[in-house]
């Protein structure tokens, strides 16, 4: 059974971007910010989970090839795809919190059926790093689709909205 902390604060103007090599995604951070959103960067699963445990973000853009950091999984690992692509831990965490799959985009350098299969299981969006136009289209969709009322995690209603 999954154990997650529910966020207390909704940060509706910030996207959580998770990547262990931020020097290679500066373009993405710049693109998101040019669209009027702020970005918060996490470099491993542990950092991402710690931030997600406190805050619900407007959206999540998550690299699948990231290190664990200091986090120990609080749920059973569903398949070995999590071992290979540890970003799925973050996706499963934020999805289990109640974040809508529409607000979560995964990306990776590799593209295979294992990845697309797990992305479908988690009902999140997926794109590959090299296809920038498709990637940007996903980001545009994430930013341009307003956060539906039902997509706001209830635990944040008592907390502060930033």
């Amino acid at each position, binding site marked *: 059974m999954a154990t997650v902390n529910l966020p207390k604060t909704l940060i509706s103007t910030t996207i959580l971007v998770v990547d262990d090599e931020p020097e290679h995604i*500066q*373009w993405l951070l*710049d*693109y998101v910010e040019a669209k009027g959103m702020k970005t918060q960067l996490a470099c491993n699963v542990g950092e991402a989970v710690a931030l997600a445990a406190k805050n619900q973000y407007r959206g999540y853009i998550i690299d699948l090839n990231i290190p664990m950091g200091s986090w120990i999984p609080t749920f059973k690992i569903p398949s070995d795809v999590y071992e290979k692509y540890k970003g799925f831990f973050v996706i499963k965490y934020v999805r289990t919190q109640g974040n809508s799959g529409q607000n979560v985009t995964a990306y990776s*350098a*590799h593209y295979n059926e294992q990845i697309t299969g797990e992305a479908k299981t988690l009902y999140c969006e997926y794109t590959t790093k090299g296809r*920038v136009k498709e990637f940007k289209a996903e980001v545009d969709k994430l930013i341009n689709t307003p956060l539906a009322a039902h997509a706001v995690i209830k635990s944040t209603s008592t907390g502060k909205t930033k």
Partner: protein
Amino acid sequence: MSEDDTKNMQVGPKDIGLLFLANFVHQVVNPISGVIGTLDNVVDGTYDAVKAKQVINASRAQLEQCISLIRNLAYLSDFFFETSEKGELRKAREAVTSVLPQVIIESIQFFQGAGEKKGIKLELVNASDQYRIAARPELLKQVFINLFDNWLKYGERNQTVVILSKVNSKKELIVELSGKSIGFSNSDSENIFNMGFRSKEAHGKVAQGSGIGLFICRKITEEILEGTISATHSPKTATTTFRISIPKNLWQL
């Protein structure tokens, strides 16, 4: 055997090809994707003219990183698995000398931009000592490029990495590089030079790496410079030291 033990195992020759393929794709696709994204931002107007110039410079550094990796592979192919025909030319190719401070300074310049971003300064202490080494400069340069590349990946921010050359009592030329890093267990101090090896600490910082850079450093040091390379890490001070030793017949002042 724990997961970490499995990761830290030295891979066998049969695994090397597969390891290369998987890691090579990741190591090259990431920076190139970054460049594509940057260029797309320039084209679609995300950046103004001033910013565009800055990011194009940054893209150049990313492409240089790709080239550095590809060059490593080329060196492997060219020097360590070369055909007998190429071997006949090897002696002539190696009848050149490198000026140590020049090679180190050029390697430092290669990382200047990336280093500034992380607040890492690479400083050659005794640049005026013109040690000449009997080896091709690009080979020697590759050793320092790989070592500096590691520091940028695994080094602490806001520090100065010091490079010092000196001669010991055996008349060996010693080049030492010291600075702060995430480090490694000293039981891995030999393993980090093995093909495909990545320490537990490296895995914790960056998910994927080629595990080829330090292997190349050792190959060049041992087979071209006829010397040795070693590494130590002090957890107390978080200081990592790489030490290259070149025998007296291979250098002159």
